[in-house]
C-alpha cells in the first residue's frame, strides 16, 4: 500500500517538475510573445494592449500559477493558430499518435528480437555480420529519410498505401491502419535496428554466463537453451530499452507526422512551434513529456513482472 502511495507521490513530483521546465522553456527564453503573434511591424500600442490581455506583464510565478490552475480545471486555453480550445485538439491528436507509436514499437519488437537472438547465436559468422551491418545502417539514417523512401516506394511507385493524411480508427479501422502504416514503418525501421543491436548484445552477455553452461551440462537441447533459458533473461533488459525508446519515438513523430501530413501530436507540435503559438506549445510539450514519463513508469512495472529478483525483494 505504501509502495503505491510512494509511487504516486513520485509521479506528482515529476509532473510538477515537467510543468515548471515546460513553462520555463517557453517563457524565459528571449523573444516577445506579442511581437511573435502580431508581427514586428505592429502598432506599439496594439502590442501593449495584447500584452495586457495575455497577462504578460504579471510576474512569471503568477503566470505559471494561472496556467497550472487552468490545466487542472480542464481549461487549457485556446490555440492562437487554430482558434479552438486546446483540450479538444489534444484528445484527438493523442489518439492518433498513440496508434503509430504502438504500431511502430510492435513492428520493431517482433522483428528485432528474433533477429538479435539469431545474430548472437551465430556470433562472428556471416549471419551476424549481415544482420549487424544492416542494423548499423538502419541506425545511421535519419527517420525522415526512411519516410521519404517509403513514400517514393510504397505510395508513389507501388501505390499500396496513402502517402498522407489521417483517418480516425473509431470511424474506419481499415482506413486508419492504411494511413498509419507507412509512418509506423518509417519510425519502426530505425527502432528495429536499434533494438536488434541491443538484443544481440544482451544475448551475447547472457550466453556467456555460468547457468548456460550448466544447462548444457544437463544435456538440454541447444534450441531450448537459447530460446528458453537465455531469452527469458534477455526479455527484461530488452523491454526496458524498448520502453526507454518511447521517448525517442515521441521526438521522431514530430518529423514523421509532418512528412506524412498525419495529424497527430507531432504534427500539432510542429504547427505550434512554427507559428509560435505559445499556449499550444506549452500544452503539447507538457503532454508529450508527461506521456513519456508515464510510459517509462509502465516499463518499470513491466520489468517487475519479468525479473523475479526485483519482484520478491
Amino acid at each position, binding site marked *: 500500500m505504501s509502495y503505491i502511495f510512494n509511487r504516486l507521490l513520485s509521479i506528482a*513530483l*515529476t509532473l510538477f*517538475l*515537467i510543468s515548471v*521546465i515546460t513553462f520555463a*522553456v*517557453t517563457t524565459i*527564453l*528571449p*523573444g516577445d510573445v506579442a511581437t511573435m503573434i502580431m508581427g514586428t511591424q505592429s502598432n506599439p500600442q496594439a502590442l501593449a494592449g495584447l500584452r495586457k490581455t495575455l497577462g504578460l506583464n504579471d510576474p512569471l510565478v503568477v503566470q505559471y500559477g494561472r496556467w497550472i490552475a487552468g490545466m487542472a480545471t480542464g481549461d487549457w486555453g485556446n490555440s492562437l493558430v487554430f482558434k479552438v480550445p486546446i483540450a479538444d485538439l489534444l484528445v484527438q491528436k493523442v489518439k492518433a499518435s498513440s496508434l503509430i507509436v504502438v504500431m511502430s514499437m510492435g513492428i520493431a519488437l517482433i522483428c528485432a528480437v528474433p533477429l538479435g537472438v539469431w545474430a548472437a547465436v551465430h556470433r562472428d559468422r556471416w549471419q551476424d555480420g549481415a544482420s549487424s551491418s544492416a542494423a*548499423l*545502417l538502419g*541506425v*545511421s*539514417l*535519419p*527517420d*525522415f*529519410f526512411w519516410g*521519404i523512401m517509403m513514400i*517514393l516506394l510504397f505510395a*508513389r511507385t507501388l501505390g499500396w498505401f496513402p502517402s498522407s493524411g489521417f483517418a480516425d480508427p473509431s470511424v474506419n479501422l481499415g482506413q486508419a491502419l492504411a494511413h498509419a502504416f507507412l509512418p509506423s514503418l518509417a519510425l519502426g525501421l530505425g527502432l528495429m535496428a536499434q533494438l536488434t543491436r541491443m538484443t544481440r548484445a544482451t544475448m551475447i552477455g547472457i550466453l556467456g554466463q555460468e547457468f548456460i553452461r550448466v544447462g548444457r551440462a544437463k544435456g538440454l537441447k541447444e534450441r531450448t537453451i537459447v530460446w528458453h533459458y537465455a531469452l527469458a533473461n534477455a526479455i527484461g533488459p530488452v523491454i526496458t530499452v524498448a520502453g526507454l525508446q518511447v*521517448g*525517442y*519515438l*515521441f*521526438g*521522431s513523430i*514530430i*518529423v514523421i507526422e*509532418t512528412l506524412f501530413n498525419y495529424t497527430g501530436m507531432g504534427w500539432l*507540435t*510542429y504547427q505550434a*512551434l*512554427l507559428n*509560435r503559438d505559445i499556449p499550444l*506549445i506549452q500544452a503539447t*510539450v507538457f503532454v*508529450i*513529456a*508527461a506521456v*513519456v*514519463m508515464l510510459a*517509462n513508469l509502465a516499463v518499470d512495472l513491466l520489468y517487475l513482472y519479468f525479473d523475479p529478483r526485483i519482484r520478491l525483494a
Partner: protein
Amino acid sequence: MKRFLTAKGLFGAALVIAMVLIAIVAPLVIPADYGTRMTMTARLRPPSELHWFGTDQLGRDLFYRVMLGARTSLGIAVAAVLMSLVLGLPIGMVAGFYRGRIDSALMRLVDTLLSFPVLLLALTISAMLGPSIPNAIIAIGVAFTPFLARIVRGEALRVTQMPYVEAARAAGATDLSLVLRHVAPNVMPPIIVQATISLAFAVLAEAGLSFLGLGTQPPQSSWGLMIQASRDYLDVAPWTGLVPGAAVAVTVLGLNMSGDILRDVFDPRTR
C-alpha cells in the same frame, strides 16, 4: 590500439576522416560565386562529368552543396557535443563522486529532463530562440546534456567504488587529487565512446532540425535543408534527395562504427 585496426574500425575511421577533410577543404575548393552562378537551364541536371552529383532546383552544383553541408552539419554537431560535455561532465562527476542527497537531487532533475524527447527539446529551444546556426548549437547541446550527465554519473559511481580509489584515499589523497588522478582518467574512455555516438546523433538531430526549417537557414547549406528542398522534385530528380541522404548516412555510419570499435578497445575485460 591493435583492436582498432579491424575492418570495421579502419573503415569507420576512414569515413569520418574523409568527411572532416571535406568540411575543412570546402571553402578552398569551391568557387566563391557558385551560388549566384546559377542558370535556369542547369536546373536538376543528373550527375555528369561537369557536375559530379548533379544540380539542384536552383542550378547549383550538388557536390559543392554537399561539401558545404558537411561543414555546417559537422561543425554544429561538434560544437553541440562539446557544449553538452561542458555542461554534463561537471554535473555527472559531482553526482557520482559525492553521492547521497546531491546525487538524488541532481538525478531527479536530470531524469525529469529525460522525459522530454531530445528532438522535441531541441526544436522547442530553437523555435523560441529563433532558428539560426548558433541557436541550433545551443538547442542540441542543451538537449543532449541530461543524457550525457547520466552516463557520466554512472561511470563516476562505478569508478569511485573501485578498490584503487579506496587505496588512494588510504594513501592520503585529497578529494581533488582523487578526482584528477584516478576518477577522471578512468571515466574518460567510456565518455569518449559516448561522445562519438553522440556526435552521430547530433548530425541526425541537426538534419532533423534543418529539415523542419528550425535549424540552419537558407542560403546556408545543410544536408537536412537539402533533403527538405528535394521533396517536391523526387519524382523527376531523385538524386537531389539521395545525395544529401547518403552524405548523412556515410557520416553517421562512420561515427557509429568508430564508436563501436572504441567501445571494444576500451573494454577493461579485454585488457
